[in-house]
């Protein structure tokens, strides 16, 4: 139940359930039904060799896929969520947090640090959907804002890889305030002259889409990634209409002008390297 933090969106059930990561069927391709071992998928960056379905990637794996070997230096890993509201639903928030930390080995839903991609320096902020549905509370907002400041101080671009169900409702209004907090941090980043390169992966929804993930100087997405402010289930319930087949998917968003490019995972590292060279200070 580690996905219970997400609020703005219910992720479509045809996608593999993140909460079952590690179980056998997590490596069954929802696109073509093929079965894989972890090692097989790792070799293809967790993209199905048969049908090109993009399986979820943990934050740590994503960092490994993108950066020059050995170049990543994590920052702010000591930050942990507090429980400002003493939030308790069917279970206490603190218990969900502890469980998520055990399950993922992460302190919260984003991993940040300094890195190089094809020798171009940058800062990274990579989300992990497995940590409470990639929900954004105070820690995610804080780490993202610090990543902006770190990038600004170093005069390098910030590369953001998002995967989020939205704001973390267990932190109440403070979770919502992470939207303007990250937005303000990007304003300062931009005024320092540095760029934000934003990559949207499946799913990027709710408060994260409605704040920093949409504000990249360049916005990229992985094929098939769901990116919507409201989730398909909420939209279907509200409007009582049948949704288009590609509702909220990267392909639809590209057509409607919200993305610069859809980049298959195998091309992500060279694409980011090219953008880092273009945004780098000569």
């Amino acid at each position, binding site marked *: 139940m580690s996905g219970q933090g997400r609020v703005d969106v219910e992720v479509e059930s045809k996608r593999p359930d993140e909460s079952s990561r590690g179980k056998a069927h997590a490596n069954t391709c929802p696109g073509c039904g093929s079965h894989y071992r972890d090692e097989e998928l790792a070799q293809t960056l967790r993209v199905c060799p048969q049908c090109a379905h993009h399986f979820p990637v943990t934050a740590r794996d994503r960092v490994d896929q993108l950066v020059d070997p050995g170049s990543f230096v994590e920052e702010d890993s000591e930050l*942990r969520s507090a429980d400002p509201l003493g939030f308790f639903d069917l279970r206490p928030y603190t218990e969900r947090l502890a469980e998520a930390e055990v399950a993922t080995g992460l302190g919260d839903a984003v991993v940040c640090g300094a890195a190089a991609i094809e020798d171009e320096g940058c800062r990274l902020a990579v989300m992990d959907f497995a940590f409470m549905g990639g929900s954004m509370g105070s820690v995610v907002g804080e780490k993202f804002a610090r990543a902006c400041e770190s990038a600004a101080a170093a005069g390098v671009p910030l590369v953001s890889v998002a995967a989020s169900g939205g*704001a973390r409702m267990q*932190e*109440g209004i*403070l979770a919502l305030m992470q939207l303007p907090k990250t937005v303000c941090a990007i304003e300062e980043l931009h005024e320092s002259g540095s760029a934000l390169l934003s990559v949207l992966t499946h799913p990027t*929804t709710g408060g994260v889409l409605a704040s920093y*993930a949409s504000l990249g100087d360049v916005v990229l997405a992985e094929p098939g990634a769901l990116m919507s*402010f409201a989730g398909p289930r909420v939209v279907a319930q509200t409007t009582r209409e049948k949704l288009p087949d590609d509702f909220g998917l990267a392909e639809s968003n590209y057509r*409607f*002008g919200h993305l610069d490019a859809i980049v298959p995972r195998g091309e992500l590292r060279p694409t980011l390297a090219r953008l880092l060279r273009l945004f780098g200070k000569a």
Partner: protein
Amino acid sequence: MRLRERLSKLGGMKLLRGTKLSGELERLQDQLDRLRSEPTAEEIWRSVELARHQDRPYTLDYVERIFGEFFELHGDRGRADDPALVTGLGKLDDNTVVLVGHQKGRDLKERTKRNFGMAYPEGYRKAMRAMALADRHGFPLITMIDTPGAYPGVAAEQHGQGGAIARSQAAMARLSVPTIACVIGEGGSGGAVAVAVADRVLMQEHSIYSVISPEGCAAILWRDAAEARKAAAAFKPDAAHCLELGVIDAIVAEPEGGAHMDADAAAALLKQGILTALEELDGLDPAERRRQRRAKYRAMGVLASA
């Protein structure tokens, strides 16, 4: 208790900035007095009900009571005019301000037309146009927040709801003019904060400001939308808690029984709150005002350490 901390810090400071600071001190003391005791679950739920009360004054009810002359601005200059978000120019006493506010409908027909105050991306683009106008002419920006949330529809998503909300916040973070946001009813999630990134955020006593609706939260965490009261008690969307958490700057009193009992009195109190806030901001250098605005949001949240 963030507010108490801030107050004691301010109290210990030399009055370097003169009377403005003492005004702020006074306001904080006044606000603190309102927080003698934490609202109970019942009180929180009462605010939820009053914030959504069918007779509660809406943005245009306040506009006609607070502003002298008013001229409504229509259209996003791209595709549409979204009636769920109104924008306009108004005279606040002798000064021109720009108004941006959600607008619910009073009767069924108007509710449908206004989409229950749930804006499309076009609404936020109209708001950004009004913000640009404010900045160009140095008019303060007043926003009024009263929405269940941004509209969750197919077309709204296709037209870029998430990006529009993000960009509207960025636009507010960039403004050079003084900005005041007033939560006057439901401050629902991204659709609310899209127009609430301000130098001063005021909340009416019985309004709510929340990351999700009580029903939505209950449906997900309790798996039963009927548990909305429990959800509201848990995530605390009331004004007192928002003030306590440092999310808003001041609570604006309502007439006994709620704003709907006496719209004129509610408007007078709101106007006073806006004027006081503007006065506090007056005289600050625009760049410094913007710096403080961003720093305020930058500091929001509560952190622990491993």
